[in-house]
């Protein structure tokens, strides 16, 4: 018989409550010299607007928000249970609806239905700038949503498909952005061949350069497993950050550069300039998001994708079947790096400046949050997670609520991630395979990888 505190539901709720408390304390107003405790008391006592309805103290707002989330999820759960009970009881009307639903589900698996759904989503995305005509919103959608989607899709290949925890992903993004600045001649370093190249030239150069860095970093480090790899990539991210921040003569140092030209196209009579108006950038970035989606989803269901899964699940067995683990891991790393490098070009050419503070570790974590939140390894999940989280971030940036402090963003994202791990460890919409893996680990039926690793290097019980 379990005691009250051993009940997993109680434990989960307790942990969530603790995190909530921590978030309330840590976020909100800051203390000052004259009022050192203001940061603490203000976190609870300050008043803030609750969707403009009323004006309660801060802690009440958090409590209400939590209750709304809990209420909604339990409502969904209750409805689901009610539904299943009715179905069991043989309710005719319910059975009929269930049948229709099942048929719809079956149809949804059909290629044609799926394709038409994608077409609708694409049409909506194409129409979006006409729906939201506010240019500051459009800019935010490009910079805070679409670019993050590119990055998350790339990191999903590394972390989701190949199972490699990369905490220095931002480094490749920085390499992409700074390569753009270099190629277009905006850095103290002279551009290649002394020519101020068109920004389009920066795209292949940045991709190749980021990929090369990925391969060079990957070959020695991808022999490491799990946590060790995470530490090394973390270090790599820091090295790149420190390099661009401190090499004044090469990268412009902490002030970076703000001389990067817009993307422009000039081929014979055809001339086009991506200017300050965000709409052309929106379409350009959207086009690349779609290309990434198509390329990576066929990659997932290819021989390469399956080999990654095999390596992720049991490297020793995969190797015994003739899969070269290092080669495939480096390949995943290179693809992820190339995507980040490309995203770097887009950012650099749209914002026209690059500065080191963009490329800190918290940025890597932000991208990782999107991947984990949506569901590692599931492209649909990552896109949805990216849209939801980054859409919310864009909203906070565009019209921040009275008490929202921009410095608190990562606190909220971190809390979101932890709560997510408590309730849905596989993410919002995990791939079927990932869900199985996570449930197997939880049930203790997964192959014990640690045992395997030790076994491969030391004396096994049955020598």
């Amino acid at each position, binding site marked *: 018989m379990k005691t009250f505190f051993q009940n997993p539901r109680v434990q989960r709720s307790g942990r969530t409550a603790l995190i909530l408390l921590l978030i309330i304390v840590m976020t909100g107003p800051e203390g000052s010299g004259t009022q050192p405790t203001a940061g603490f008391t203000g976190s609870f006592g300050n008043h803030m607007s609750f969707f403009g309805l009323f004006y309660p103290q801060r802690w009440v707002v958090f409590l209400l928000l939590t209750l709304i989330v809990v209420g909604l999820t339990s409502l969904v759960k209750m409805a689901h249970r009610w539904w299943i009970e009715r179905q069991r009881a043989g309710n005719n009307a319910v059975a009929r609806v269930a049948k229709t639903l099942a048929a719809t589900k079956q149809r949804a698996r059909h290629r044609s239905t799926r394709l038409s759904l994608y077409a609708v989503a694409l049409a909506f995305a194409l129409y979006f700038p006409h729906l939201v005509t506010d240019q500051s919103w459009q800019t935010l959608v490009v910079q805070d949503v679409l670019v993050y989607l590119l990055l998350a899709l790339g990191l999903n290949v590394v972390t989701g498909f190949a199972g490699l925890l990369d905490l220095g992903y931002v480094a490749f993004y920085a390499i992409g952005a700074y390569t753009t600045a270099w190629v277009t001649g905006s850095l103290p370093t002279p551009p290649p061949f002394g020519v101020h190249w068109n920004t389009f030239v920066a795209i292949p150069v940045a991709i190749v350069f980021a990929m090369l860095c990925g391969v060079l970093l990957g070959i020695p480090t991808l022999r490491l497993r799990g946590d060790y790899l995470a530490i090394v990539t973390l270090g790599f991210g820091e090295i790149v950050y420190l390099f661009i921040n401190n090499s004044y003569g090469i990268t412009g140092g902490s002030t970076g550069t703000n001389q990067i030209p817009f993307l422009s196209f000039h081929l014979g009579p055809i001339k086009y300039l991506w200017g300050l108006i965000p709409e052309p950038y929106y379409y350009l970035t959207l086009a690349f998001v779609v290309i990434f989606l198509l390329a990576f989803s066929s990659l997932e269901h290819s021989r390469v994708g399956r080999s990654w899964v095999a390596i992720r699940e049991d490297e*020793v067995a*995969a190797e015994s*079947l003739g*899969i070269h683990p290092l080669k495939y891991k480096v390949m995943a790393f290179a693809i992820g790096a190339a995507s980040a490098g490309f995203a770097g070009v887009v950012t650099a050419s749209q914002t026209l400046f690059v500065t080191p503070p963009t490329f800190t570790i918290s940025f890597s974590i932000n991208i990782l949050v999107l991947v984990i939140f949506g569901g590692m390894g599931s492209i649909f999940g990552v896109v949805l997670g990216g849209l939801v989280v980054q859409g919310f971030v864009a909203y906070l940036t565009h019209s921040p609520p009275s008490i929202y402090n921009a410095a608190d963003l990562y606190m909220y994202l971190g809390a979101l991630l932890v709560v997510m791990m408590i309730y849905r460890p596989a993410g919002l919409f995990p791939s079927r*395979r990932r869900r199985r893996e996570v449930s197997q680990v939880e049930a203790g039926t997964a192959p014990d990888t640690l045992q395997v690793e030790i076994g491969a290097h030391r004396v096994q019980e*049955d020598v």
Partner: protein
Amino acid sequence: MSSLIFDVQDVTLRFGGVVSLNNVTLHQGRGEILAIIGPNGAGKTSLFNSLTGVYAPQEGSIRFTNSQGKSMSVIGKKPFRVSAAGVARTFQASRMFSAMTTFENIKIGAESHRGLGVVGAMLKGPATRRDEHRSDKRTRELLEFVGLTAQANTIAASLSYGARRRLEIARGLATQPEVLLLDEPAAGTNPAEKIELAELIRRVRDEMGVSILLIEHDMKLVMSLAERLYVLNFGSVIAEGTPDEIRSNPVVIEAYLGSADTGVAEETK
């Protein structure tokens, strides 16, 4: 014996001060069903790991010769290279990719020796499609061969022990090997499954022409299946011969039953 597929000469494998294999010399003829038996801790699995490139023995030589007569030294080669040369294996504790279906498990074996083809995979070109088609076909054939067609879409983790063993054999065969190393294939299976398994192993040799190297504790199975046996004890080969010779070899009986004063009976026939 026409030609040797494995030729192991004076192999010694140490882990620090522990000698796991001590001057092991053995050979396997092409098309032979060879078994290695011995008490727990005798070095059987270490031998398998040395033959497949997981361990690199410090002394001696291991040569693998394929049907084209090309010979290579296994020591120092990585497992995937050894696999590409034509050596497939199963593991003592079966190691399927447990979150994948039976079909996917075998398909991975069927396509693992092709090149990387990332760009092709992203573009889904005609060559990639042809490749996929070929792998699917081979996978279906192997499912049929080992009798798992009905469980093609079952998640590997929910298969029975017997089915897992057959899945591992099929996955190994999918890499088109010339020799298949089976590490205790009958462990955890029931008597009926054991009979089926023995029959399957024989069919692998007869119909596919794959040589079999087998570690097994189940004496009845080994004696009925193997054409020749090596007995390992404390890392050394203590006997070699046909099942009949081994059965009556006093050294083997002592290794298995212990001498009168220790008196621990581990395994009997």
